């Protein structure tokens, strides 16, 4: 494990990705405690301020401190995106493993259906589900989770099938190990690694998708400090204060880049040969 971490931190992508994701994680955990102002505190006299010593990133149309809103909103954006990805991964893993286990015609039927579902773009899928459930942050989370399920199912299945064919699994079968031992000790570690890589990269999609839903008014609702919603609200005032849209945009992009880099770094660290 520590060897893996060492390899991860030695590559530039891995190191930068780790740093950004760690910072994001700390903000999710402690952001609301550390935020200098209340994210919903209205200061009518301090509207549209440029960055200053009191307000490092300036203020918005109600005089709310943008930095504080970003710090508190990290939960509304990153934690939600992460949870949505976890739901999609779990559901996809169950479907993918079942399909690989069943094999034959059942596998064929499940995978063709998964392929068919993949022809609905994730955003469109999420939009349809939000339309069904109603617009709210929680429903957007469910929608993103469901929209990710077919893709994760396809990946889990192909990984599980590939691992099943490996020599070390056949060797374990030949040694007469129990099925439980083979699944847990031989297959699981090798199935989990590629799925963790894929999940890490998908968190960055989820951050973007979730922020997009909020931007379109179908996810988090005002006055939540969700980053996509902040950009949407800031657009009306862009000629008064560009910071209102620039900072949350940068935050979304930075987190998405961080998870992308971490995912690629992990992939390289797990496959030292390539």
């Amino acid at each position, binding site marked *: 494990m520590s060897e893996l971490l060492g390899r991860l931190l030695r590559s530039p992508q891995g190191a930068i990705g780790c740093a950004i994701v760690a910072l994001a994680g700390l903000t999710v955990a402690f952001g609301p405690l550390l935020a200098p102002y209340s994210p919903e505190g209205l200061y009518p006299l301090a509207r549209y301020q440029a960055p200053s010593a009191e307000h490092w990133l300036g203020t918005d149309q109600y005089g709310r401190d943008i930095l504080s809103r970003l710090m508190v909103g990290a939960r509304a954006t990153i934690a939600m995106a992460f949870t949505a990805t976890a739901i999609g991964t779990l559901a996809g893993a169950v479907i993918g493993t079942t399909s690989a286990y069943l094999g034959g015609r059942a596998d064929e039927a499940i995978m063709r259906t998964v392929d068919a579902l993949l*022809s609905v*773009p994730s955003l469109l899928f999420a939009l349809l589900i939000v339309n069904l459930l109603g617009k709210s942050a929680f429903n957007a989370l469910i929608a993103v989770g469901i929209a990710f399920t077919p893709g994760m199912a396809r990946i889990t299945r192909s990984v599980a099938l590939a691992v099943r064919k490996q020599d070390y699994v056949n060797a374990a079968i030949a040694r007469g190990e129990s099925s439980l031992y083979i699944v847990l000790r031989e297959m699981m570690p090798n199935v989990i690694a590629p799925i963790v890589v894929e999940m890490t990269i998908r968190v960055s999609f989820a951050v973007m998708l979730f922020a997009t839903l909020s931007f379109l008014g179908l996810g988090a609702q005002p006055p939540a400090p969700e980053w996509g919603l902040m950009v949407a609200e800031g657009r009306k005032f862009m000629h008064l204060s560009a910071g209102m849209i620039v900072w949350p945009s940068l935050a979304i992009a930075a987190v998405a880049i961080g998870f992308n880099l971490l995912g690629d770094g992990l992939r390289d660290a797990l496959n030292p040969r390539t």
Partner: protein
Amino acid sequence: MSLTFLLRRGGLMVYTLAVVSLVVFGITQVLPADAAVMMLGENATPEALAAVRERLGLDQPVIVQYGRWLAGVLRGDFGFSLRTGQKVAPVMLEALGRSLLLAALSIGLMLLIAVPLGIVAAVRRGRLADLVVSLMSYVGVSLPEFVTATLAVLLLADWLQLLPATGYVPPTEDPVRGLKHLVLPVLTVSVILVAHVSRMVRSELVDVLHADYIRAARLKGLDARTVLFKHALRNALLPAITIVALDVGYLLGGIIVVEEIFALPGVGRQLIVAIQNRDLPAIQAGALIMAATYSAVNFLADIAYAALDKRIQYE
């Protein structure tokens, strides 16, 4: 290309469309506890609710509803919009034309930028140019369309006043203004695609450049340019066809957002308006058209790939 391949691939597309139509219909019309209340809201009068139920056939069994709807769809009839009262199909068809124009221009621009970037990065692997291209692609894939669009409007429309921020003018009516209105949407949609495709072209080309036949070509004394353009590129770009086709999924998602932001009246914007107004027939039409476009593009890409690459014809 064998006939069996064509038939199997065609059958797959039909199955895909059947599944998608079931999902779209299920999510929009069957799963809501009462689609009529969902559309009109809790305060709707009983008469209005009854009218909508009758119009959509909500009082019929689900199978009958689906059968009627599908029969209509197959005849190109998506019913009447609950918002405007007009027929949905002609409105969507007109919107689809605008979306396809946006998509075609974006894919064209993407290919013009992404392929050369990928080639440069692969040829100069590990050097500065490679690093710059890969940094650009990391940033590119991490920018959601609404962020790119908002920042582009801020910079090019609000500060520099070079381009109109929103709106649409048919290029057939006024080519110059029409194209000006299309610049920002096309740029925005292209960013993620360029980032993605340039990375793919790079990795395919890197693989091909390591192949034995490339070494053989070099060893028999061909110059680097001939090896790259005559021998390597052809094999590196073939897989890119299917990757670009898969990217059409991102493209369609991106188009929804971009059309909404720039007030470009395409399928995506129609769909968002329909969702905001809970206009079921229009939602169903928009979603189905998008999914059908995606599977049609992938069908054509697979056929083209099989036709161009003789090795896969027996798969």
